[in-house]
């Protein structure tokens, strides 16, 4: 079930029940694929949230109800379009204390060994719900509740690109240097936003992420390959 709301003069917000759920994401992505398959010149862009899909129109919407009826018809299309293929991406992360600058503090507060934090963080499979906040910043679901940890009261002015952090019930990777209040537990040499490649962000909604622990030496090797654009990310096709 979903509802439609006008969002200014040029957008329609489609909302699902306010929960974070993979079933909702699946419904959103199928709807998005059906809308894209229309190749309509009237739809300019779309934006995905945990329980929402916002359709941005090229021109001012003259008749909201009429546009909603069109979208409803698209939703019910018994489409044969192939959904976008989703992948599980393996992201190497170095959890050395040099990069994981908040690991020790988290370890103390959570009463967990740093090795246990690393193991827990790198054994889960995370779902990419959507990209927001910064170009290439993935909103990931699936953090083990043992690792829930409040954001820092005073955000850092600069968090290094590639930093892997935990903020409340979420984990994520900083795609660019940015101010940020998440607790930093490691760093990946992988770039989540790179304008020098044709697809600036390799991951998309519906993909999955698994972090794998690497040594400082491996980090430097991969970093070097990434700089030369010759590092091949390991990915597997998701069949659901």
């Amino acid at each position, binding site marked *: 079930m979903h509802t439609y709301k006008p969002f200014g003069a040029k957008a329609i917000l489609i909302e699902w029940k306010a929960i974070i759920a993979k079933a909702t994401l699946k419904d959103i992505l199928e709807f998005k694929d059906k809308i894209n398959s229309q190749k309509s010149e009237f739809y300019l862009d779309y934006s995905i949230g*945990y329980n929402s899909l916002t359709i941005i129109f090229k021109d001012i919407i003259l008749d909201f109800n009429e546009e909603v009826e069109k979208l409803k018809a698209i939703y019910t299309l018994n489409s044969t379009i192939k959904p976008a293929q989703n992948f599980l991406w393996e992201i190497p992360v170095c959890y050395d204390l040099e990069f994981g600058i908040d690991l020790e503090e988290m370890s103390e507060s959570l009463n967990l060994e740093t090795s246990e934090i690393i193991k827990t963080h790198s054994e889960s499979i995370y779902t990419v719900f959507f990209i927001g906040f910064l170009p290439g910043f993935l909103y990931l679901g699936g953090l083990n509740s043992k690792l829930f940890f409040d954001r820092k009261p005073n955000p850092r002015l600069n968090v290094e690109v590639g930093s892997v952090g935990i903020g409340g019930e979420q984990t994520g990777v900083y795609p660019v240097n940015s101010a940020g209040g998440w607790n930093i537990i490691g760093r990946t040499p992988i770039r989540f936003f790179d304008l020098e490649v044709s697809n600036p962000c390799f991951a998309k909604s519906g993909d999955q992420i698994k972090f794998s622990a690497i040594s400082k030496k491996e980090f430097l090797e991969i970093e070097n390959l990434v700089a030369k654009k010759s590092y091949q990310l390991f990915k597997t096709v998701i069949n659901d």
Partner: protein
Amino acid sequence: MIKVLKSGFYTTIQDKGRVGFASLGVPVSGAMDSYSSDLANRILNNSLNCALLEITLGGCKFQFLSKTTICISGGDFSPKMNNQPILLNSKILIQENDILSFGKVNFGVRCYLAVKGGIQSDKKLGSRSSFKNITNNFLIKSGDCLPISNLKTTLESSKTLVKVNKNHFEYKGIECFKGPEFDTLDMHQKKTLFETEFSISKDINRMGYKLNETVENNIPSILTSAVLPGTVQLTPSGKLIVLMRDCQVTGGYPRVLQVSEESINRLSQKTTGDKIQFVLK
């Protein structure tokens, strides 16, 4: 080429922005006051997609290294060519080595310097609009050389100028639609929203304008969802933020209002201490 002799307070390259990349988390950007930037391009017979300079409160100085025609629209910061005052909203023929400077701020916050054929900086994701981590340049710096179109200009300086309605700079009403979470507000909150004369805080930039006065906030935050330029967010402290052109693509604060495109343009010409009032469209 345009040589930047003095960069000014906050000068960026802008066009109509990046569209189609919200799903990568890329903001739209583009000229804050697109009414004025469009006008400058129109007067030069440019395409509305031509990139121009967005100049905040003047303070900058440029030298033109080639012949061209320019037009300045938007705020009035007493522009001068080789120390002689020039008109806003008018075609100005430029000779090699002419120097453009600005003086006293008369009205407005942003002006647009358009050149015939547009600024030819590199396009990233379909746009030349300055944005950190996307374009090479974020703020224009002294010493920069900005490539401009080599189109042989046949335009002459004109003595005529296009009249701009002063309301664009003076009217305090900000027209808006109900935002997605508007109906979670109670009668009293709605009343406060429309009856308060809000003042613009010191916390303003191309991403958003924070307002000083508060609206009592007892409504929960939302699951992260789309925000757009013009979205008015109600923060936990009760302060409102009007999101502007460089805003993020998603947010978690309730979206109580959505400012109209025309009013985003007008708000862009206001600054700290200016008063605004929301008016439902």
